[in-house]
């Protein structure tokens, strides 16, 4: 799952498939992804993994990096 999310972000959000991006990189705090980009990532996760992310779950612990996102999505899918 981590790889799929990394590929999506590189290609669709950063428009740079050749860039280096790891599961631990700080996505939101580093200026890599802006607000609109973040909204698109949420939409991608919901569609790709058939989940609904409730607003109260939109916290740093779940979205600080791709590793955290994968763990959160896995937990949500149960």
């Amino acid at each position, binding site marked *: 799952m981590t790889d799929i999310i990394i590929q999506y972000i590189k290609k669709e959000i950063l*428009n740079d498939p050749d860039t280096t991006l790891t599961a631990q990189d700080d996505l*939101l*705090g*580093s*200026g*890599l992804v*802006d*607000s*609109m980009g*973040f909204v698109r990532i949420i939409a991608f996760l919901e569609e790709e993994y058939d989940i609904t992310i409730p*607003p*109260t*779950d*939109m*916290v*740093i612990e779940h*979205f*600080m990096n791709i590793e955290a996102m994968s763990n959160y999505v896995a937990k949500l899918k149960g």
Partner: protein
Amino acid sequence: MYLIQHSILNSANHYPDNEAFRYNDKALTYKELVEQSHQLAHLLISLGVQRGDRVGVYLNRCLETAVAVYGILSAGAVFVPLDPYAPPSRNQFVIQDCGIEHLISNKNQEKNLKNTLTENLNVKSIISPFGADSISPFGGGWGVDFATFCANLNTRTFTQKNLQKSLSTKPQICILEEDLAYIMYTSGTTGTPKGIMHTHRSGLAYAKLSADLYNVQSTDRLGNHAALHFDISTMGYFTMPYVGGTTVIVSDIHTKLPASMVQLIEKERLTIWYSVPLALIQLLQSGIEERDLTALRWVLYGGEPFPAKHLRTLMEQLPNAIFSNVYGPAEVNQCTYYNLPKPPKDDETIPLGKVWGNTEILIFDENNNPAKVGETGELLVRSATQMKGYWDRRDLTEKNLYKREKITGCEEVFYRTGDLVRICEQGDLHFLGRKDRQVKIRGYRIELDEIEATLTTHEAVDSAAIFAIKNDDEAYINAVVVLKKDLETSDLKLYLSEYLPAYAVPSNIKFIDAIPRTTAGKVNYKILKTS
């Protein structure tokens, strides 16, 4: 006190150990802020920076912004906030337009800087105020790759190590309250942004007036949501230091995750919040009812109207806080306020309210005659918080001013806001729209003509028209385009995003055969909006 930086000197005298700025779990006391700002100022002066020179602040929301602002001002220079999220071409324009030779930034921005800096820009140095062992979570030392990249451009890099060698005494410079303090760039109609120049006088006048109006104290803690390039941030960067209070810089990541943001308001025991309405609306579905936000005594919003239905819900959630609608174009910062006595009953727009101190207004009809009570007219403002003008745009500055001489030899200069207002019998101002084609998207000012001008520079575009449509209280930008050769709408969106901030890229682009025009040959926006 007549310079903006006098605020931190004064507060360091009275409250040396008060926290001036906080970011996540890190903080700078007034004593530390003064020391570090002076070190930065001495470094800048040693690099040849003189009074009035423009120094860029290329940082996202972080603690370094405070040192950057006060370091630059203490050197007698002018700070120019740059938005690292904006397209590189836009920042390149600003750097060139006002001749920025020095940047304050940090390691975090290396990637963006590499995409922005070129040899023609002539940036001589980049300074990271915090070092590797310091309070920056990312470390202030530059990466080897980046240092090499800069060396190739003949750009020198500096870190905290260089700063620590600088003096922390107050630099001796000659500077007056009427000298420039900062320039904020905003959307311009001709396709490039324009720089709004503010002086120490206008910046400090804002700090004094806002501190008085909201009775801001040294015990207050403000949640600063706006990035430095947005004038809403002046309360956090000027007003709080003026009173010796604490500005809590809301991190980029918190602004994107409302459930974390509401936790932050609780944890930091914020007493004042100031942001665009959208940030507050996002709080509504983020578990706000489970949080103890009773410390909040003021909620200020500005930048655009707050839809009454959301405002009502939020006010019911926060019964201890007084809500204030803040209004004023960046050219005058703030000029009116409306403190809501109770949650709005119906869905009517909230008034702009009454004019604040040290400010005079006129409402003019199309023939520059005063409009009567209840009549619609353009709002003109004369204020202590007024800008000096647009950077290097004397023509544009003059065009936006109205001058009169009621007493011989005493010229009164008003700024023409372009906002249409009316004054009601209770004396409150009401906003009715724009005289021109400026719109607000999520609080950001956008000139639709700037998007149109940018779109028509694409080789495949014959002509284009841009218009905004309101849907469910939010404005959306639409484009219709006549093509010279085949193209996808996504190509055009990508092209625009290279030149315009993300919020200015149209949500919908439609290809048509011809732009509808009026009999006079002008674009018929009425037809476009209804079809």
